[in-house]
């Protein structure tokens, strides 16, 4: 199995993602520059966090129009796996690969803290080794993480079991106080209808070493690796 980490001007979590794949997942991984368009040899790509294009216009808007994203759409349509983290989630929404949008945080602050998220569905290629109700401790660092969508989209996400993570407190209770950015329905991450594209605001790649305060992120990368191994 081979992973790719897409790099835009302004990406800054690309090396963290690369490190996790090479060190903890133990698989080959390449950086993919945003002007490259050949994703052929990859089984999964990660769209990392950062501030692509300086968040000009809207976070993720300009990156969603870059050459590599046309290839990512085709890659996703072929059933390959796409993981968007933070700015990556914003880019996937802007590209139309995931529904909804991420707007300025409710309190306007850039939030940079550890949060808890509850696994809402283990029925995705990214959460297969986790259980519904599991609580993960993952850091967030964003100014535009406030997930919004219309009522029809929210209904559809619920009906199709596509809300993957919700912000919660340490005990797994979803409360408004535990919602760091005002996201609708406390949504921290969702997946596509075909379940092979996921976006989340928290940073699992920054939570893979006990030294960094949490290793709960490994469950997500480990699940993806298991999915890929089963397909190989």
């Amino acid at each position, binding site marked *: 199995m081979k992973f790719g980490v897409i790099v835009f001007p302004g990406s800054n979590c690309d090396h963290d993602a690369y490190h996790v794949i090479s060190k903890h997942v133990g698989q080959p991984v390449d950086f993919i520059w945003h002007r490259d368009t050949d994703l052929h040899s990859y089984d999964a790509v990660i769209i990392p966090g950062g501030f692509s294009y300086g968040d000009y216009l809207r976070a993720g808007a300009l990156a969603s*129009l870059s050459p590599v994203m046309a290839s990512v759409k085709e890659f996703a349509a072929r059933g390959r796996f796409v993981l968007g983290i933070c700015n990556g989630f914003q880019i996937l*929404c802007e590209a139309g690969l995931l529904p*909804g949008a991420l*707007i300025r945080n409710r309190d306007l602050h850039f939030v940079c803290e550890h949060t808890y998220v509850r696994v809402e569905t283990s029925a995705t290629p990214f959460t297969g080794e986790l259980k519904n109700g599991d609580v993960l401790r993952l850091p967030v660092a964003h100014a535009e993480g*406030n997930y919004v969508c219309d009522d029809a989209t929210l209904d559809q996400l619920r009906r199709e079991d596509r809300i993957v993570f919700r912000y919660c407190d340490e005990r797994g209770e979803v409360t408004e106080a535990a919602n760091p950015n005002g996201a609708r329905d406390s949504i921290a991450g969702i997946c596509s209808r075909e379940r092979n594209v996921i976006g989340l605001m928290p940073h699992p790649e920054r939570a893979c070493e006990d030294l960094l305060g949490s290793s709960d992120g490994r469950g997500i990368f480990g699940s993806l690796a298991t999915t890929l191994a089963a397909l190989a």
Partner: protein
Amino acid sequence: MKAKVYVTLKLGVLDPQGKAIQHAVELLGYEGVADVRQGKYFEIKMADGALGEEDARKAAERMAREVLANPVIEDYRVEIEP
């Protein structure tokens, strides 16, 4: 010729920046402000003689739809200045 594009948040989408601006305006003593919504304004200068007015409008509307606005959360309005 110039295309002016106004992008505003859809009704019902929370605008925390607008709220903060409203609060600041009220701190200055302005009364009777019911709501402030923040938007974006773009001026797109068309190359001389490249497009007629109708085609310029169509092009600006397409740019607004595809790039300048995110239709999930924003509305847009285009004006053409000859």
